[in-house]
């Protein structure tokens, strides 16, 4: 549960009787965990926020009445004070609107950006032990090239000779046309070596992955479907295994279906890409060592550090450079944690955006503070009347605080609502 979720549940204890709070907060924690598993973190956040706000609405009025007591609803008590505050806000609606909108904008924007940063940068990849998942590729200081690419022969040499990895796979993504029960569908597909699913640590939901024989030129034409394609394209046909489907106009036999949510290597191929099928990669299809059009992904051996794997692979690559100077001359090996490779260029702009938003929030706060100060100064006459009528200094100070409090209550709800709306919109776009 995020820190603000724990904070919200804690805040509920101010409104709810202890017996109700303990049971209700426990239920929300339990149902929240289930929702994260079933519908993802963003939807679970929105659900939790809705639940807490609803509980506040249901229990708030009676709890406030109980806490404040009817005798305190006088001009000097909190109830009277809040009424006076509301009157002050109503008397200067322009001022109140500017303050509320300013801070609502600041809080809403910051909450939205923080939710994005939390969802994209801080959520671990949906694979077992994701820190052991690495991309093994090559980099050339003389050429501007995005990380994550290598050639088939270099991959084969690394795979056969390196001891730092539990398994290593090669893949190449591409689009495909799939003949489903309805119209043919445009789909994202990847050619992958048999080790691919082991590297990601996710076995098929049912059926199997690929065999070494299938991953050769002229091997059996088989395919593994994503859960989504099995669901949308074939109506969750229970007899899908062994069924022949058309991929790019050629027949392929379905041998497996991956579990819901498995999307590798779609997260690296681009934002919003949903993988639909995987086909066996014929590793003997391109023996040109200089053709770096493929990507290798590996799982580090148990207890092997990233540094140790880098040292070993660079040692092997030095041998490959001497043996094949034409193809490998200027190329160095490069190992990146899969999560870092996927985030790639996204990380810096997101942090920059968060920093900018915090800065904007600070400017908003400074502006609002100066507005409120000006307003307090303009109430000199009212203060003089209050003093003449015998209001103690504490009451006068509290009066000013209450006006700001009323504004705060409004803007907090506006900010959270604005943030929630943008948050839901962002989750739909994402």
């Amino acid at each position, binding site marked *: *549960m995020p820190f603000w979720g*724990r904070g919200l*549940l804690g805040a509920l204890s101010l409104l709810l009787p202890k*017996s*109700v709070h*303990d*049971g*209700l*907060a*426990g*239920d*929300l*924690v*339990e*149902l929240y*965990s*289930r929702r994260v598993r079933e519908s993802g973190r963003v939807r679970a956040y929105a659900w939790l926020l*809705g*639940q807490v706000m*609803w*509980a*506040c*609405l*249901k*229990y708030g009025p009676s709890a406030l009445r109980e806490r404040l007591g009817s005798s305190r609803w006088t001009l000097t008590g909190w109830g009277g004070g809040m009424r006076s505050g509301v009157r002050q806000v109503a008397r200067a609606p322009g001022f109140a609107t500017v303050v509320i909108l300013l801070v609502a904008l600041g809080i809403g924007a910051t909450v939205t950006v923080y939710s994005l940063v939390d969802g994209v940068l801080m959520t671990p990849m949906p694979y077992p032990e994701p820190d052991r998942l690495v991309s093994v590729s090559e980099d050339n200081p003389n050429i501007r090239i995005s990380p994550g690419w290598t050639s088939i022969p270099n991959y084969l040499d690394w795979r056969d000779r390196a001891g730092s990895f539990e398994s290593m796979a090669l893949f190449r993504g591409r689009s495909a046309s799939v003949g489903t029960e309805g119209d043919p569908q445009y789909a994202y597909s990847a050619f992958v070596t048999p080790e691919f699913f082991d590297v990601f640590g996710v076995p098929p939901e049912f059926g199997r992955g690929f065999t070494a024989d299938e991953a050769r030129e002229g091997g059996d034409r088989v395919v593994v479907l994503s859960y989504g394609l099995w669901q949308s394209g074939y109506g969750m046909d229970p007899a899908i295994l062994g069924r022949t489907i058309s991929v790019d106009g050629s027949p392929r036999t379905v041998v497996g279906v991956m579990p819901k949510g498995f999307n590798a290597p779609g997260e690296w191929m681009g934002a919003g890409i949903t993988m639909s099928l995987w086909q066996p990669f014929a590793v003997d299809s391109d023996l040109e060592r200089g053709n770096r059009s493929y990507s290798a992904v590996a799982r580090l051996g148990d207890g092997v550090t990233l540094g140790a794997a880098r040292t070993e692979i660079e040692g092997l690559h030095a041998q490959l450079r001497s043996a094949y100077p034409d193809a490998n001359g200027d190329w160095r090996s490069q190992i990146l944690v899969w999560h870092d490779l996927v985030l790639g260029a996204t990380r810096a702009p997101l942090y920059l955006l968060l920093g900018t938003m915090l800065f904007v929030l600070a400017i908003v706060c400074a502006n609002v503070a100066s507005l409120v100060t000006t307003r307090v100064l303009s109430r000199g006459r009212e203060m003089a009347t209050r003093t003449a009528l015998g209001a103690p200094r504490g009451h006068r100070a509290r009066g000013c605080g209450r006006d700001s409090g009323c504004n705060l209550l409004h803007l907090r709800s506006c900010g959270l609502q604005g943030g929630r709306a943008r948050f839901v919109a962002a989750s739909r776009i994402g």
Partner: protein
Amino acid sequence: MGEREFLGEFEHLVLAAAMRLSDAYGASIIQEIEDTTGRTVKAGSLYITLERLEKKGFLRLRMGGAEPGRGGRPKRFVEVTGEGVRALAMHRGALLRIWDGIEMQLEDS
């Protein structure tokens, strides 16, 4: 049984869901109602309803022990009383009687 003891729609769902469950408490009742009826349930509304039903004598609420999967918070168990079962049976009877004779029209429409 007086007229005042008729159940509201949500009260009826809560009581019936609590009877269906061997382990009835807030989260399990919410899940049961959502799974069987497809409607979304707010925990705040459920707890207000549970307290109202307890005041009417239709159920008893009992706190359990602290549980790790719930942030160390206890479950508030729900037990339907004999009064509650009778109220539910009366509600069901009233529904069946008022539906009698018009179900065919629904099927035809």
